[in-house]
C-alpha cells in the first residue's frame, strides 16, 4: 500500500483496466504511455520465459513481458484482442501483454483495500491492493515488483 500513500490527498485514482483470464486488473493511468496492438515481436534468447521479446516502438527497442507468464497463469496464444500496454517506469519502458484493455476508470480511493488472503494464483507480492467498484473487482498491480530489472539474466554457465 505504500505506493498509494501519497494519493490520500486525492479522492479518486484514474486507472486503466485490462483483462487477464477473465479477471480485471488495473494500472494507474499516469504510468501508461500508450496501448498498442500486437506488432512484430523479436524473441530474445536466454531470458526468463515471461520476457516475450522486444518490439520496435517508434524507434525504441522496447522489451515485452507476457503478464500471464509472469503471474504463472495458463499461457494463451495471442489473438486480435490482445494488447500491449506500454508502461513507463523510472528507468525504462516495458510493454505488458494483456488479453484486452478497454477501460479507463476512476476508482474512489476509499474503495481500495489491501489484498484479501487468497486472490487467484497470482503471487501476492505483485498485488498492491484490490478495489471493489460497482460489483467489479479490480486488482491493482505493483509494477515495481513485477518489472524488476533483469540483471545478469543468465550467468556465464556456457
Amino acid at each position, binding site marked *: 500500500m505504500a505506493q498509494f500513500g501519497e494519493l490520500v490527498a486525492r479522492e479518486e485514482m484514474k486507472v486503466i483496466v485490462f483483462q487477464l483470464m477473465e479477471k480485471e486488473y488495473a494500472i494507474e493511468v499516469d504510468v501508461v504511455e500508450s496501448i498498442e496492438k500486437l506488432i512484430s515481436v523479436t524473441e530474445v534468447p*536466454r531470458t526468463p520465459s515471461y520476457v516475450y521479446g522486444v518490439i520496435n516502438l517508434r524507434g525504441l527497442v522496447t522489451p515485452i513481458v507476457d503478464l500471464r507468464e509472469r503471474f504463472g497463469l495458463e499461457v494463451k496464444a495471442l489473438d486480435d484482442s490482445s494488447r500491449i500496454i506500454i508502461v513507463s517506469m523510472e528507468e525504462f519502458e516495458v510493454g505488458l501483454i494483456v488479453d484486452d484493455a478497454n477501460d479507463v476508470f476512476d476508482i474512489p480511493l476509499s474503495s481500495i483495500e489491501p489484498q484479501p488472503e487468497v486472490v487467484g494464483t497470482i503471487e501476492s507480492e505483485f498485488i498492491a491492493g484490490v478495489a471493489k467498484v460497482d460489483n467489479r473487482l479490480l486488482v491493482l498491480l505493483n509494477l515495481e515488483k513485477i518489472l524488476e530489472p*533483469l540483471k545478469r539474466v543468465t550467468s556465464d554457465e556456457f
Partner: protein
Amino acid sequence: MDTNQYLEMFLDESKEHLQACNEHLLELEKNPEDLAIVNEVFRSAHTLKGMSATMGYEDIADLTHKMENVLDAIRNSKISVSTEILDVVFKAVDYLEEMVMDIEAGGSGKKDVQDLVNALNNIEAGHEAITTSVMETSATTLEVVQAQDMPKTELNYDEYELTVISQSQEQGFNALEVTVTLRDDCLLKAARVFMVFEILEKAGEIIKSKPDVEFLENEDFDASFTVVLLTKEDSVAIQAKVMKVSEVEDVLVTELTAESLIQGKRDKETSSQSLEQETTATEVVVKQETAPEKSKRSTNASHANKTIRVNIDRLDILMNLFEELVIDRGRLQSIASELHNPDLNETVERMTRVSGDLQNIILNMRMIPVETVFNRFPKMVRQLARDLDKKINLEIIGAETELDRTVIDEIGDPLVHLIRNALDHGVETPAERIAKGKPEEGTVTLRAYHSGNHVFIELEDDGAGVNRSRVLKKAIERGIVTEEVAGSMTDKQVAELILASGFSTAESITDVSGRGVGLDVVKSTIESLGGHITIESKEGQGSLFQVQLPLTLSIISVMLVNLEKDIYAIPLSSIIETAIIQKSEILNAHNQKVIDFRGSIVPLVNLKGIFEMENANKMDEYQSIVIVRKGDKLAGLLVDSFIGQQEIVLKSLGNYLQSVFAISGATILGNGQVALIVDCNSLIK
C-alpha cells in the same frame, strides 16, 4: 534590448571565434611574416568585439578592442611579431575565454583586465608615437565597420537611397526623417507602429526605417524608431498627424536636405557616391580603404553560414521519426510489389532512393570530427612547453576522424591528462635530449583513426619512456605489486602500472601533471565509456598510449543471418570471413565440433544451441558458418543462412533487460523488425 534569446548564439560564436584566434595565433607564431594570418585573427577579434558590445559585455569588448589595436599595428607592419607580444595576446585570449565561460556559467562576464589592457597598451604605444596619424585613420576605418555592425542612433543612407532622395527632392517632394518615440508604458508597440506607418503611407512614401520593419513588427526595438518619408506635405503637418496616434510620446521631424545628407555622410565616412557632383579626394580614399574590408567581411560571413547548431535531442527525435518512415516505406514496397502498378512502383523506388540518402545524412549528422576536441591542444602544449622549459612539437593526425557526439563530449579530459603526462614525464628537457643524442625538440604525436567498430586515439612521444626499474620500485613501495610478481612482469605490464591509482613516478611533483591521480582517472573514464587504454613503452625511446573507444550509438556494419525465423546481426568487425562447409568436413575433438579452416583448427559454435532455439542440433548437408575472432582466437558460428551486409544503428535493449548472454544490443531493420546483435566476444572463451 532583451538579449537573452541571443545569449546561446553569442556564447557559441564567441567560442568559435576564440578558437579561431588561438589557431591562427599559433600559426602566426610559426610564420611571423604571414600577415594574412593576422588578418584572420583580427577578423575574429573584431566580430567578437562587436558581439560582446551589443550584448553589453563591456569588459570583453574593451579587451578585444585593445587586442585589436595591437593586431592592427602588426597588420600594418608597425610592430613585428615576437614571442613576448604573442604571449600577451594569448593571455588576452585566455582571459576572454574565461569571461565567456563565466557568462556561460551564469556570471556577468566581468574580470579585472586592467593589467592586460596596460600590457597591450604598452605594446601598442611603443610604436604609436611615430605613426599616430596613420593609426588614427585606421582607427576611424574600424569605427565605420563597427558602426555598421551595431545599432545606430542616426540613419545611414546607401547609394540607392540617396539617389531616390535626391531625385524626389528634384520633383518637389520633401524628404523627412521622422523619429517617433512611444510611451514607456505602451503595451502594443507593434500596433502603434502600424498606425504610424498607415498615417505616413497616406501622406507619402516610406523609403527606409530604422530598425527594419521586420524588427518593428516583432516589437524588437526600444521606445523609438525612425522612418524616412518622401512626401509633399510639410514637416509640421506630419508631426501633428503622427502625434494623434495614442501612446506616442514624442515625434521629431527633421527635413533632409542635400547638404545635411552630405554632411552626415562625411561624418560617418560611409562608402558611397556623393549625392552632388562634388566628389572629393578624401571620400575616394575612404572608399578604397573600406571596400576591401567589406569584401573580406562578406567572405568571412559566408564561412560562418556553413554551419548551424542543432540540439542533439532533436537529432535523436529526427532519427526516430525517420525510422518510422523507413517502416512505412517497407510496407509501401510490399504493397507496390503486390499491385504491379508501374507508376506506384516508380514512385516507391524513388522514395526508397531518397530516403536512403536521407538516412545517410541523418546518421552522419550525429557524428562530429574529433577535431573539436583536438583543436584546443596545440595551445595547451605550447603553454605547457613554455612552463616546463621544454621544446615540444605537437603533431595531430586524423583530426577529421568522426566520433559520436556522446563520446566526443567525454573524451576531452582524459586526453588532456595524457598529454600533460607525456609533456611532463615523457619528453625530456632539451639538455637531457641533446645528451642522449636526440633532437632538441621533442615530438608528441596525437593520432586518431577508425578501425572496425572502434576509434583509436593514440598519443606517442619520443621521450624517456617508462623506466622499468623505477616504476617497479615505486609499485613495490606502494604495495601495488609484490616483489615476486614484479620480476616476472613483462615490460608492457610494468608500463601499465602507471595507470594504477596512487602512482606517481615523477621525481618532483609538478603542477603540470599533478600527483599521479591523473592517469588512473584517465583509465576509469575510458573504461566507463566502454573503451580500453594500453601503453607501449621503450625505455629511452618513448611511449605510446593507445585509447580504444567504441563507436557507441553510431552506425556499425553487420552481417545479417537467419537463425530459424529470426534475424541476427553479427558485427563485421568480428568477422574474418563466411563459408559454406560440407557436413563431412566437421570433425570431432573432445566433444567439440571443429573444422579445419585454412590450416588451423577452429571450434564451431552452435548458435541455435546457445540461444536455446528449436532444431538446435539439425545440421544441413551444406552448412553456413561465420568465422569470427576475438583477439587471435577464432570460432565458427553455425547459422542457417546469410542475408547480407548492412549498416545498422546500434540500440541498447534498455534498462529492463540489462544483460542478456551473448547479445550486445539490438537494431531496427528496414522492415521495422528488431534484430539482435550477437556479441562475439562472449562466445569465444
